[in-house]
């Protein structure tokens, strides 16, 4: 399906994921369009990483569909993966490689043209402050340095959609600021960003759209202004948490039906 101006970058339609009898995420629908920085928030175990891993093709799912730039991730996963890049919550990467080996590996696999590789690697590594460490083994990197390397590897092929799971964890303030700038630039160029975070202040300032997931169900979604109304995002989230405390556990019910 050719990408037109109106084709959303990411469409999730009635998504459902089960682990055995347990329903982890049910009937979740959302759309991310070009230029969006979309924040995805929820408590621990709400289903954020479950959805993200299904979008990037790291995990199968049972119901609904996911499309990236109009490509169904189940029907044509390779074409869908070409359009996106993923930064997981834990930057577990090949510790036996050096930083530059990892980046050239990603560039080779995503077939990044030779003439732009040096410029992109130098630019991103310089901005995130690890240019001087690229010759060292990844095994000697700190958590934050690995996180930066994974982010650079994700940006090299200029993906349409950036998927990030808790991207700011472990980053120093300077790198965190640079990453926000990079995400803004990416969205401004017509790309889209979809990321999960527990840092509500960051989501509130950075994102133009927000979705809140609770126990596997989407409870709020829309522009950041719509979702928070007159309150802060934290107030809205805490208010939902109180409702949550009073409500029965629906997502984990054995039969998977709505309570």
């Amino acid at each position, binding site marked *: 399906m050719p990408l037109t101006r109106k084709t959303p970058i990411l469409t999730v339609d009635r998504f459902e994921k089960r682990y055995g009898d347990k329903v982890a995420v049910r009937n979740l629908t959302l759309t991310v369009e070009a230029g969006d920085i979309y924040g995805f928030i929820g408590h621990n175990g709400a289903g954020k990483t479950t959805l993200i*891993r299904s979008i990037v093709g790291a995990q199968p799912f049972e119901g609904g569909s996911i499309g990236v730039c109009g490509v169904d991730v189940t029907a044509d996963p390779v074409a869908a993966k070409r359009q996106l890049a993923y930064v997981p919550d834990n930057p577990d990467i090949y510790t036996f490689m050096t930083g530059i080996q990892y980046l050239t590996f990603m560039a080779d*696999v995503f077939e990044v043209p*030779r003439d732009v590789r*040096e410029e992109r690697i130098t630019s991103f590594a310089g901005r995130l402050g690890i240019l001087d460490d690229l*010759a060292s*083994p990844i095994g000697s990197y700190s958590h934050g340095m690995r996180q930066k390397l994974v982010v650079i590897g994700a940006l090299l092929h200029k993906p349409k959609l950036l998927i990030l799971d808790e991207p700011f964890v472990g980053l120093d303030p300077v790198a965190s600021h640079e990453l926000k700038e990079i995400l803004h630039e990416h969205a401004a160029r017509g790309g889209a960003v979809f990321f999960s975070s527990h840092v509500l202040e960051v989501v509130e300032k950075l994102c133009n759209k927000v979705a809140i997931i609770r126990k596997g169900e989407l409870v709020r979604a829309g522009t950041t202004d719509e979702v928070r109304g007159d309150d802060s995002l934290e107030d809205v989230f805490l208010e939902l948490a109180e409702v949550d405390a009073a409500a029965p556990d629906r997502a984990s019910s054995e039969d998977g039906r709505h309570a």
Partner: protein
Amino acid sequence: MRNFFILLRVQLLALSHSLKPGNRSGGALAVIAGIVLALIIFLYMGLVAIGLVSIGLANAIPGFAVLIGALAGVVFTFLKANGTLFGLADFDLVMALPIPRRIVVAARVSALYASATLLGALLAAPLWAVYLALVDFSVMSFVGMVVSVLLAPAIPTAIATFVAFGVSAVASRFRHANLVYLIVSLVGFSALFIGLYGFSFWAQAQSDSITAAQMEGGIAFASDLLSRGWPPAALMGSAVADRSLGALAAFVALSLVIPGIALEIMQRNYLAINAALAGRARARALTARELRDRTGRTSAPIAALIMKEYRTQIGIPSYAFNCLFGYLLMLIIAVAISVVGLDTVVTSGAINGVDISADQYASASGLVANLLPWVFAFCAITCPSAACSVSIEGRSAWVTSTLPLPARTILGAKLAANAVPVAATLAISAVIMLATGQIDVLGAINVVVVGFGVFFLFVTIGLASDARKPNLTWATPNDVVKRGFPIMVVVLGGLAAVTVGAMATFALSMATTPLVASLAILALGLLLAGAGWLVFTRACRRTRLMF
């Protein structure tokens, strides 16, 4: 003491967890394989002891048992100290506990010691059983057995902790430490193998002409070597054979005092030792030109994946040790056969001193040449890196599963990274033997085709199994490299195929002619390789690489 036992329990749980198989089917297979292996070891050590008795070296058995226990202590501690005693993931957590450092170190050393003792007991028990049954069933022998089994690994465990620390400390200073470590170890193992092979060949050559006096001298020399090589072994030998209580007391005292001193040194320097290991080897920054050079080289995606597979093998030492030694073994055997000559194997026209005719010699020579491909097939199945190559990705598997590449490319790269060097090594080995006139052209083709066929079928079965149910949550690479189900499939299945194939070849060579048998095994090799390709293509269709 309460804290000591709490910490010791945690350590023993961690060690036992590292030996636990990943899934139920793998677990059942691992238990069976473990029992079979233990029985083989038990039987082998028992036969060794009987052999020692039969050549008049019965009194060397107690010392030999101590030596075996000591070796078990050295090997186990050397392999496990890094990660158990130092370089540990939970160092900060443990050191923050309100428990004296001496207790922490003692608990960790004791866990290593207890495990080494169990391993040593498995090896030494058959020796002692034979000694008690055939040589001397006395109280002193029984006491010697108990003391030896319990204390033999104590001194070596203490020494090995320092050696393991030294090696780890040196390795952590090199950027390519794993590669250096790997090369040195492979060279060491090769030297050991060549030494043993050379000695065995020399001993066989000498056996016909050896006199009784020489035999007596040899026995005395062997006993002397044992005593000089490991003095505690001599003490135990003297304690049991000469009924020397003094020697027994000296053995016990040494086995307690030396580890005690080692423990004290270790605990006093524990913080400094771990700080030394935490120092990371960092490279200098790349110059602009170096960066341009490195980013200017491009590879096709499959070539990049194959290179990544090789880097994985070199980057994980236990993966390399388990999967690379077979390559070296093939070359060593090819060179050894070229130097010694297949004719020597057929004993140059005489078997056990009985002359054979020219026809019989030709037949025997053809039979040995036909069995040779199975020897290389055996070596080839000891290089099964592709079989666990999905699981070995561990927590980094998200990288592969999110790449925009089909399963065929990803699995193909894993298979190619293994199959190409195996085929190349088989070909080089065949050419060496062909060039030196040890085998003919058909024999050389058979070495490559049969060796590769057996390898290819079983490694693709292993890879398919690994891609279907990978174990990505392993705690140490050994969980998948040594105890993984796919590796067991390759090794046990391949071993069965080699055994059956060699027996069939033998029967066919005897029933028909060596040429007919040669052609038959050539066809079989091609069939196995074809079957392997079918397994691989099926695995590619079924695998979705969604871990």
